[in-house]
């Protein structure tokens, strides 16, 4: 272990642009890196490789050498209502990162980068009519990029501190459409548009600390700030309606998507015997702050009737009434995670590990007995994994190479949603399902 010296740098620690681990993002649901996923995501007090960018940035400073990791995972949803698969999109993509340890004035520090790059898109905003059933925590919120850059420092041998800021992008835009709309042959309308749109940066903090209780135990505390993707669009259409009259349409939509509530994680890592590690985390998630993901829509319409009245077959439109948004109620939750790692094989430069983990999340969504249908169920997640570590496998590498694989199964037991209103257009339904997550990660230490 490196020598460490006391240095009162705490006040000088700068919070740089580090990505915080975001709740309601794919890594919250599926983990980061095969080792952490296989150990039930109970990594706040244990992670010290690139995955610490997500689980606890303080752990970055525990890395012994420069490391680069790359991996891939794919999670398939088999979520059903009334026994039929709803086709929730899979979550798949590259995971990777690096840890760059060093010393400044003799004090150990580390810089880390973590990345999850989805196959299909960087992020997706999806606002649906509020009565349409959807798997609220799985349908869209996991379809996004995760990018983390963190800094960590160990001012004393027993204390590691890390932190950073995350950023994502939300959208604000306005557009104008002017010209002539041809009601009788819409494709021959003479319309043009201009756009003024910004993807604005959204930042949220993450802080973590780890305390070593000797060489066999550690405790950790992590805080992750709240985050939401805003989508605000306004549109204005002003034009001639087939030489009959003029029309003015103004439309404003404002919504919040991919809301990530703040969290606090308390974790512990223990080495009861040399070959066995046990990790336990408890995560408090502030779901009660969840923002209803329904767009607030405001429409203005002014179409004076033409001289002589409207032609046959064309009825004058009226200004639509605004939607009445029914709030989505959620409750705070404490999510327990537990993971074990056993050094099953050790010979020469080879080490083999077997890992297992479990976590349980009780659904935070209030029963959907009214007109809304934010479908969610309790989730039991079990995971299994294997790892192989090879020290100095080739002459050009002075460090080690690690291969880890994982298989994770989440079970959402079927449960009934019974509607109060007999004339509800959706009606009663049973919902539940499975989520499979398979992946592998390779890490190279230099």
């Amino acid at each position: 272990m490196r020598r460490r010296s006391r240095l009162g740098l705490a006040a000088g620690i700068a919070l740089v642009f580090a990505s915080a681990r975001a709740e309601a993002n794919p890594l919250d649901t599926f983990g980061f890196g095969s080792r952490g996923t296989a150990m039930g995501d109970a990594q706040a007090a244990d992670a010290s490789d690139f995955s610490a960018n997500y689980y606890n940035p303080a752990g970055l400073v525990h890395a012994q050498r420069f490391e680069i990791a790359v991996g891939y995972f794919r999670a398939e949803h088999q979520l059903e209502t009334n026994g039929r698969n709803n086709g929730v999109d899979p979550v798949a993509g590259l995971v990777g990162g690096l840890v760059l340890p060093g010393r400044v004035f003799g004090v150990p520090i580390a810089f880390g980068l973590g990345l999850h790059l989805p196959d299909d898109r960087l992020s997706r905003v999806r606002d649906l009519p509020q009565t349409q059933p959807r798997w609220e925590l799985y349908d869209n919120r996991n379809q996004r990029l995760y990018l983390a850059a963190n800094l960590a420092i160990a001012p004393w041998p027993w204390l590691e501190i890390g932190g950073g800021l995350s950023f994502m992008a939300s959208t604000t835009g306005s557009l104008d459409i002017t010209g002539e709309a041809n009601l009788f042959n819409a494709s021959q309308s003479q319309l043009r548009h201009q756009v003024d749109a910004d993807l604005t940066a959204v930042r949220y903090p993450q802080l973590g600390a780890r305390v070593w209780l000797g060489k066999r135990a550690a405790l950790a505390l992590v805080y992750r700030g709240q985050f939401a993707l805003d989508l605000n669009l306004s549109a204005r259409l002003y034009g001639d309606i087939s030489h009959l009259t003029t029309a003015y349409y103004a439309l404003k939509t404002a919504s919040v998507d991919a809301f990530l509530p703040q969290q606090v994680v308390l974790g512990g890592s223990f080495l009861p015997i040399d070959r066995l590690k046990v990790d336990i985390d408890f995560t408090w998630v502030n779901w009660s702050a969840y923002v209803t993901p329904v767009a607030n829509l405001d429409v203005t319409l002014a179409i004076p009737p033409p001289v002589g009245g409207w032609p046959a077959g064309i009825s004058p439109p009226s200004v639509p009434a605004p939607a009445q948004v029914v709030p989505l109620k959620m409750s705070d939750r404490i999510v327990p995670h537990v993971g074990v790692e056993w050094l099953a094989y050790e010979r020469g430069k080879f080490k083999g590990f077997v890992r297992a983990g479990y976590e349980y999340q009780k659904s935070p969504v209030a029963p959907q007995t009214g007109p809304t249908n934010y479908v969610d169920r309790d989730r039991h997640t079990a995971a299994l994994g294997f790892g192989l570590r090879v020290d100095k496998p080739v002459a050009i590498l002075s460090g080690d190479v690690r291969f880890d694989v994982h298989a994770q199964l989440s079970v959402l037991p079927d449960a009934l949603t019974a509607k109060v209103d007999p004339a509800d257009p959706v009606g009663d339904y049973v919902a539940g399902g499975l989520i499979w997550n398979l992946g592998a990660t390779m890490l190279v230490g230099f």
Partner: protein
Amino acid sequence: MDKSARAIVVGSLLAGLLVRCATLAELAHGDENLPTAGVGPFRKLAGGEVRGVAPYVLDDESGDFREPAALPLTSGTTMDVALYFVAKDASGHDVILRTRSTDGRTFYGATQDFGHHPAQVLAADQGWEGADVAGPSALAVGSEVWLYYASNGSVGVAKSPDGLTFTKASAVPVLAADALGPITGPSVAFLPDGRFRMLFAQGDSIYEAASADGVSWQRLDADPTTPAMDPVLAPAPPQATLAPGEIPPFDTLRVADPCLLPRVTAAGRLQIRVLYTGFTAGDAAAPASAIGFAARYGDTGPLVRGPGAVYAVGKHENAPALFEWSLAAPDTSSDGGTPLVGSLLYVGQDQTSQGSIYSALAAGLAPPTATLPLPAAYPSGP
């Protein structure tokens, strides 16, 4: 560069080929096979989904087709469906015809099915009947098809071994008119325990009757606490205050043409679903109408109406009938592989031809986001 180094470089390059790197923007899913009460909202069938002029499935200016009733031919596991409906015969009297389709929208004897015509299955010939028969409601009872109908303000029933050749079950109506007025639009269905249940229109409201054998009927009072016979659904009260732009209720004048659709929900409870025609004041000759939905949990009691019309196209649509199916046949899937669970709504609505307006049968589809494949060939018989 030695072998080890080459291996590392090649391995890194190969790893890079496995990812698509957030570039694809594929369309979102997650809205397949969503739960639904099966009663809309409906959208009109589109041009590529019917052989004639969408959304019409049966259209004959001289026939003036109305009041459809759907009878699934294979328990809803295929899209085979028979349609009974009212038409004018050569003498101008209302009779009941039958036709059939294998895809729910391409019917034998439709206008483009040259040389073929739907089969006439019922006409007025009993002493208690007037000159017309109307309001068909078809029900599979064992190996027979029972056809309930309205005539001269009362309800009769005819039975058939094949759905085409019917014999009137008795010389008297099974449910006669009373002080509330003539009965129109009967709709009969089985409850899950095998009992018969009927909804019908009388006056400006919809009432209910029950039977153990389908022949002897007793009226049911929706609210036994009052001395009068209460309907299960009455016209909606006019709304005192409306939000700007909010559409007023569509059924403040009269409710009629019930289509009774009992089911057991996923919660194991009996749900009585009803599609109906709601009328509101339009011009004096032709009140405006739309199709609405009302329901209740349990065996008896008033119906609770839904938040708005489930089908409204401004063509005096009326007399809804519903065909629901749930199957895995690939020729009905909306995306080339996923089993489609859906509903087709049949209504009578205005059609125009060379300035004249007459009634034709149109169809709507739920869920509205689904699309049907190209229409099948015409069946070989009614």
